[in-house]
């Protein structure tokens, strides 16, 4: 059976559960851009973000038959993605490899140079200040706990509601709110001189 042109999400999921590859691909395409964005923002490394992307959708592919519509597909998928990202962040903490700078034969190279900024500034002075600010933000983000970081990213950059974030992270809305509160407090304390 092939996926019809216009299927709603539950139909797509059921078709994919029956082994319809096109339905699965359509499902992936509905979410993969935001998954890659979340992983890129959280890990600040294009290579690791791609690893998360691959691992997440392969897990979805393998386990889709267990999806019982108890929660939304979005929540289920993000649970997988956020767990993978949290694992990666925790392992990185253990390895003490927060820096995105790596040594190459051509000297030190920041892997984040491969990740475009959201907006480039044409005024050199503003651009310099903006780079400094961005660097400071990266430092603060690197100092957040993995959970604070994940909650902040999902709320600020993905626009997810705290209730959904709580469901994704397997915790209460209140706990997610506390995490977000701590993250923004740290941001405010660290960025006080800049903004």
């Amino acid at each position, binding site marked *: 059976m092939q996926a019809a042109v216009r299927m709603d999400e539950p139909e797509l999921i059921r078709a994919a559960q029956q*082994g319809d*590859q096109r339905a*699965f*691909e359509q499902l*992936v*395409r509905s979410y*993969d*851009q935001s998954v*890659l*964005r979340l992983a*890129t*923002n959280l890990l*600040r490394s*294009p*290579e*690791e*973000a*791609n690893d998360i*992307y*691959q691992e997440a*959708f*392969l897990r979805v592919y*393998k*386990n889709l*038959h*267990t999806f019982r519509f108890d929660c939304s597909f979005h929540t289920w998928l993000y649970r997988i993605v956020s767990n993978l990202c949290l694992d990666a962040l925790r*392992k990185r903490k*253990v*390895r003490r490899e927060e820096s995105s700078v*790596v*040594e*190459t*034969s*051509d000297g030190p*190279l920041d*892997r984040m140079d*491969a*990740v*475009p*900024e*959201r907006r480039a500034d044409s005024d050199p002075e503003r651009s310099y200040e*903006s780079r400094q*600010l*961005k660097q400071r*933000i*990266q430092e603060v983000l690197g100092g957040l706990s993995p959970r604070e970081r994940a909650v902040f990213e999902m*709320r*600020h*950059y993905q626009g997810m*509601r*705290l209730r959904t974030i709580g469901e994704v992270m397997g915790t209460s809305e209140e706990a997610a*709110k506390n995490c*977000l*509160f701590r993250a923004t*407090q740290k*941001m*405010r304390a660290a*960025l006080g001189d*800049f*903004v």
Partner: protein
Amino acid sequence: MTCEEARKNLPLFLYGELSFDEEELVEGHMDECSACRTALAREKAMFRALDEAEAVPAPQQLEESRAELRRRLSVAGRMAQGAPLGGSGWWDKVREGFTIRFHFAPGIAQVAGAAAMLALGFFTARVAPNSFLGNWHSAGMLDPATSRVRYVEPLGSGRVQVVIDETHQRVLSGNVDDQGIQRLLLTAAKDPSDAGLRVESVDLLKNNSQSAEIRSALVYALEHDTNAGVRLKALDGLKQFAEDPDTRQALTQVLLTDENPGVRTQVIDLLVQRHTDAMVGVLQELLEKEDNGYIRMRCQKVLQDMNASVETY
């Protein structure tokens, strides 16, 4: 509501995560307190700065991730035929065969290097604990040349899980005209981690430069390779196309920008075999910055032959 309470609630207020009542209280306080309105303006400025610091993946990255996933799913689909979805065996093979980690390779080289290593028959696989024990017993120890501990994870009760990246080697042989072999050579010709490999690969490819794909790879190597030896090999392969407009354009660019005088010397010898009006400006521009005596002499000779000035005014 006090100022302290209002300010504490500002981030959640901006995220729209306060209850209706709490929001009313904050808004009421803002109407009355100019200091807190200033604090709110600062909070908004911080939010804007955070917005601008978002790392957005390049569209090309999304396409590459999608293509890689399609390849993996296609293998998964083939391997799953006859096996129920979610069954064991086939899945482990898909996952192990594709869980490739190249983060220990340096910098930008990782992506291209990963492709090159894979194509040439090297692959790094995550070793599952069961197979790890087998390898441990048979190998006796970890070979640092082919293995690397990726990470360690305590499992509790004194147990630990050690994940190892291992490199395996596979040997392929075939005719240099074979398309599969050519594809591997094309990948190897771009391997940023091994200049020697690139020299050998470009040397082998240059004899088949009738193919548009190979010619384009040679032009790329000539324009971008950091190793002069590779660039000279690529140039060798492009000699027979010195009349081709696209190749001439690439040669002209290389003449003006390549740092290696050996490369520039060979390029100018190739270009001046045919005098075109377009060359006058290029040679005049080159003369302004060229310090190699031979290249200057060739430039001046051609310009004189073409009755053009050797200087620009």
